[in-house]
């Protein structure tokens, strides 16, 4: 069964705040698939989430050209991938991303490029523009029941 939760994010700050609240709930082996068009807030969400998990503050550059950036997080490695430029799903092995899916916290932008290689049990976050300029609509979807617990109370937190 596919479960679903919707959030309205009033501003970039609200997006970052949600990312920071989700961050401590994640465990090694968790994958987040970040979907949505250019400018929907995927990278902004990823940066806020990664910075909340870093042991030492450091730059979080865009992974658009390098495809992946990895970080040392409090609970283990964090991988931030942007697959827009990925030519072929077979290149995932070259990047080491398929190994990382089982062991690291992985944030993947443009996950459509994964094809059949999408990690099982991932949490899918779909960002879309809202009514107001600063507003975004976020839809979370998942099948793996472990996310029921992980996400419990996340909606009720103050924004």
């Amino acid at each position, binding site marked *: 069964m596919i479960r679903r939760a919707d959030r309205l994010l009033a501003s*970039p*700050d609200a*997006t*970052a705040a949600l990312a*920071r609240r989700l961050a401590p709930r994640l465990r090694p082996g968790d994958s987040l698939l970040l979907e949505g068009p*250019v*400018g929907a807030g995927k*990278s*902004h969400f990823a*940066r*806020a989430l990664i*910075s*909340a998990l870093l042991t*030492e*503050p*450091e*730059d*979080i*550059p*865009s992974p*658009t*050209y*390098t*495809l*992946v*950036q*990895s970080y040392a997080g409090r609970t283990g490695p964090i991988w931030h991938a942007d697959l827009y*430029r*990925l*030519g072929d799903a077979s*290149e995932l092995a*070259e*990047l*080491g991303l398929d190994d990382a899916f089982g062991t690291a916290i992985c944030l993947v932008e443009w996950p459509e490029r994964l094809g059949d290689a999408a990690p099982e049990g991932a949490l899918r976050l779909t960002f879309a*523009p809202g009514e107001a*300029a600063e507003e975004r609509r976020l839809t979370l979807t998942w099948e793996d029941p472990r996310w029921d617990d992980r996400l419990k109370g996340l909606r009720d937190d103050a924004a």
Partner: protein
Amino acid sequence: MGETLTILGLESSCDDTAAAVVRQGAAGTEILSSVVLGQSDLHAAFGGVVPEIAARAHAEKLDIAVRRALETAGVTLARIDAIAVTAGPGLIGGVLAGVMLAKGIAAGAGLPLIGVNHLAAHALTPRLTHALPYPYLMLLVSGGHCQLLTVRGPEAFTRLGGTIDDAPGEAFDKVARLLGLPQPGGPAVEREAAAGCATRFALPRPLLDRPGCDLSFSGLKTAVLRQRDMLIAEQGGLTRQDRADLCAAFQAAVAEVLAEKTRRALAASAAPALAVAGGVAANAAIRAALERVAEDAGAAHVAPPLRLCTDNAAIVAYAGAELFRAGRHDGMDLAARPRWPLDSAQPALIGGGRKGAKA
């Protein structure tokens, strides 16, 4: 300057595979050869669309690049004084391929090995091309990078500011994508902007109202998107003039933000020269704005040629020569580093979550 040095340089940290031979002596520095296999022209300046991500591809091409570089230079390994190799930052597989080959050549030929920071190699380019004396202010501005650095020596960099999200080259690429223009986005947007009016649309000037030299370009791309969607909603589509005006407004915003932050950095560093390197410096409007900044501050303005601003191994060999003279050698334990900040003393640039960063 002492004896003449001949350095073999290797570069494989991003999309291109490159090798070069550089000779440095009392008469100056000469690039004897510079071989770049891959996307070698303007495409690399703003990041191509198809990456050469496979370490295997670099490994297959590196020895060919080295052989060609030696042949073109007319030297054998017996005439080389040291091997310089990009040891990071970059895509780890590619960096590893370069470091492994450099170690092999160094061990086989009995030559010293020097690991070079890829960003340092770019930052030292004005010394290779113009023998620019230290200190100087360096604006590194490309598809993947945007930093303002005071350069005092081959390993002495102070970061005054940088982008907290995307680099300008990436913003150009994405704006091109949003407006149905081809990649690479930099030249495409510049061509359109030439026929446009920069003042019809009011785009934001991110972080300009805040003190300091940090920059932000991600929101600018989103502002272009919003303006585009408003036009489409109002009139059912975009005219060619709309597109040209959007490009002109975007380019003007990038140029103004870069110029103002560079002006502040130049004042803060008190350096007598401004050097600009990176593919984005190929944009005529941005280049002109930065030249004015240097002129207003009474500083010299140096812009190395574009072919040395994109990824190549001549700048790695040159950086290796400076490091070699400074006594830097690396052993067989030289590690490939995916991340390698030039100035680790400065706080990290964190977008959005800035509040959590230590000051």
